[in-house]
């Protein structure tokens, strides 16, 4: 019997590019994507396989120092270091959206030094005006044409809609997965959930949907649920894309029941409208509904309304999942989150959720101090 559910997740999680390499051997093309703003729908519609580029928190930088400054986002440095070491050699191309200063820079450096067969940069406006939506739609059109040149044929409207449907299904399954964290104790641990999400980004969306369905079914029925911990927490932050930090928090006395992370709820808490113009629908969904501080959300009323508009969804998560506190895990040199976390912490504090800001260098090489700080915080809120 073929592996499924959490056992399969563990295998894909451990083997990182294993499935992608198998697919490549079968003639599929694998396209690496940074961040949350490159719609995988367009890649899937072309018959290609989107693969989310992540780093490896267990590795320190070995070669990237000769190419990238130490003052850069440590996730970008780490993932590029992996690429230099050949760990992304299975990619047939890569796509970089303009998320922030750091991601913009990685495009040139990767392209020049690793010379991938295909590369494309998608510009993403920082504002939400009508002009920004129109512009982003045009950029997605340019991306689609670029992918069409790669595959040597046009992507049909039907293929695009089918792909949106598949990815909407995936997003819905992810949301269903999070539902399993609402009971106390949760039916699935935060680190298990993180592994499921990572596995989902490393296989074609059809397989990811199947995988999630099997995980949800297994978790609903299993009896060995994660032990109840003294606290339930939400983890907020940027590209936290591996399980060890979540394991650390859970190991010192909390259930991580919800998050606001790039590999977490952030890219999955919306659907793309399936009727009408697919590019316009994707532009609207990705620009407006991915809650990242890199997008400036204009203030339409007073200060309180502005903060509610920007951070109210985090407070809603906290209420809905009945958390005791928030851990704001910020990466060094991530300007957007460094600015924003000050406001997020204050806002959530006022909403009744105490917060702890921790800045890390992405890797978990020096984990003890982190454990001490988290432990002290959990004791305070438990």
């Amino acid at each position, binding site marked *: 019997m073929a592996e499924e559910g959490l056992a399969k997740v563990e295998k894909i999680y451990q083997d990182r590019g294993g499935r992608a390499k198998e697919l490549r051997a079968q003639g599929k093309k694998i396209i690496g994507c940074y961040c949350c703003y490159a719609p995988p729908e367009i890649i899937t519609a072309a018959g290609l396989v989107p693969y989310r580029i992540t780093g490896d928190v267990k590795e320190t930088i070995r070669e990237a120092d*000769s*190419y*990238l*400054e130490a*003052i*850069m*986002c440590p996730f970008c440095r780490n993932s590029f270091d992996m690429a230099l070491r050949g760990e992304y050699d299975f990619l047939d191309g890569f796509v970089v959206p*303009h998320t*922030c*200063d*750091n991601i*913009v*820079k990685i*495009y*040139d*450096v990767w*392209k*020049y030094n690793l010379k991938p067969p295909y*590369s494309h*940069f998608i*510009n993403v*406006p*920082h*504002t939400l*005006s*009508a*002009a*920004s939506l*129109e*512009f982003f739609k*045009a*950029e997605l059109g*340019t991306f689609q*044409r670029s992918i069409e040149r790669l595959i040597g044929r046009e992507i049909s409207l039907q293929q695009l809609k089918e792909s949106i449907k598949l990815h909407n299904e995936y997003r819905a399954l992810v949301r269903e997965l999070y539902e399993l964290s609402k009971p106390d104790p949760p039916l699935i641990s935060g680190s298990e959930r993180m592994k499921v999400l990572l596995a989902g980004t490393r296989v074609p969306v059809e397989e990811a949907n199947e995988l999630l369905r099997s995980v949800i079914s297994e978790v609903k029925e299993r009896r060995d649920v994660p032990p109840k911990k003294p606290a339930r927490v939400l983890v907020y932050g940027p590209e936290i894309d591996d399980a060890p930090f979540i394991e650390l928090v859970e190991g010192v006395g909390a259930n991580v029941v919800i998050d606001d992370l790039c590999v977490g709820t952030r890219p999955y808490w919306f659907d793309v409208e399936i009727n009408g113009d697919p590019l316009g629908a994707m532009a609207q969904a990705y620009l407006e509904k991915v809650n990242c*501080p*890199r997008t*400036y959300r*204009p*203030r339409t009323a007073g*200060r309180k309304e*502005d903060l509610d508009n920007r951070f109210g969804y985090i407070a809603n998560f906290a209420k809905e999942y009945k958390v005791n506190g928030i851990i704001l895990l910020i990466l*060094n*040199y991530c*300007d*957007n989150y*460094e*600015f*924003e*976390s*000050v*406001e997020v*912490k204050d806002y959530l504090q006022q909403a009744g959720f105490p917060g702890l*800001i921790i*800045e890390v260098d992405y890797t978990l090489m020096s984990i003890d101090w982190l454990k001490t700080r988290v432990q002290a915080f959990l004791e305070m809120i438990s």
Partner: protein
Amino acid sequence: MEEKKGGLLAGIYSRTIKTTDAAKKVRPLTKKISQQAHEAAAEGKPIAYCFIMSLHDEIIRAMDITPIWTENYAAITAVKRQGERFISSAQGEGFPRNLCTYCTIQEGFDVMRHQLGMMPPDAPDGGMERPTMMLGTGMMICDPRYKSYQTAQRYNDVPVHVHGLLWPAADANLAEVQDYYVKYIVEELRDLVDFLEKQTGRKMDWDRLNEIIDLANKTYQVWYDAYQLRKAIPAPMPTEDAMSTMVPGYFWMGTQEAFDFYQDLYNEVKYRVDNRIGVIPDEKYRILWAAGLPPWFALAILNYFESLGAVFPIEITYHPPPPVEIPSHAKHPLERLAWRFFKQWTQRNEEAQRRSGDPMVEWMLEMIEDYKIDGVLAHRATTCRTIHVGQIHQLNVLRDYVDLPMLILESDICDVSAFDEAGTKDRIDTFVETLEVYKKRKQ
């Protein structure tokens, strides 16, 4: 060794020695920025916090809005060694020290002014007035431009406007994308004008804006022409002067004062070229200041280079944009601004696609040839990712095309504590020795 340039760097507190009279006349212009803001505040007129290079210049001049260039003010506090108290103030609010110190100084200043209910005591130039609005931008570079003012609403509860200004990646097909890029910039500028009209209760005078753009374009041209004269040997004007002469171009653009300043600068540099008056009497090495913001509190390091016979005849940082051709169909002032912006930012993309892949490297290659450069120096400001992430890559690529010594010095724009004086001097000494080795080898 000439007395003027000969003294070793007497600590980072030493005053930078400027060469041109024009550079020596800049300080009153920076004082005047604050002075005008004080007057505007007293009269209840609109005041805007602004970032440079955001296409605000002509628009706010046309609408009689008084700008406070917060980056400029931060640099002034750094030069006056007063930045630390504002950085600490921001740090006390939770803003990490590794954030852009232009912004942490602004945030820290805002915090103090807010908490004290008055201007922080002894603030340089009388301090920054509380703005009536804050104008950010969402660009390809510099995330703090849209985050910093948004966060500053904690201390200045005034309206913020952010407009988008994007340009395509170096490998983009310009013919495929330029129309929708320009259209986007036009519409975002129109949105900015709508916002300003609402805030000020004034209507934009489009004819006046067109006139101001005409004046700005003339100013860019004479500024650019003056810098072209710097190709001469010996170098007539050094980079430390350019760090001052950028002030009218970045903070007074669209005014007669800025035009007159660059006309005078042109005349002065031309006189020096015609009479072979160099920055230093015995110019041995010519170094390009690559992309990188300077340590404003320690510009005297450039004088230290000069004491070793090395001069910086030109720099990427704050270099005026070259004149670009605007399509004849672009008549509306916002279209003219948008096309100028787009063309300026993409002017080397096609060359880059043919050769290095990097427009900045292409620009450096041009300068290395035109200004007879012997070596390249970049300064890394540790709190700014905008320009300083990518320097290693640019120099790596540059090495594929030229065989020159290259050095990256590291400190910060405004954080004095990031500066290692002894280590910096050591690296400069070694670099200058390397320049000599290369020179001999080429001979």
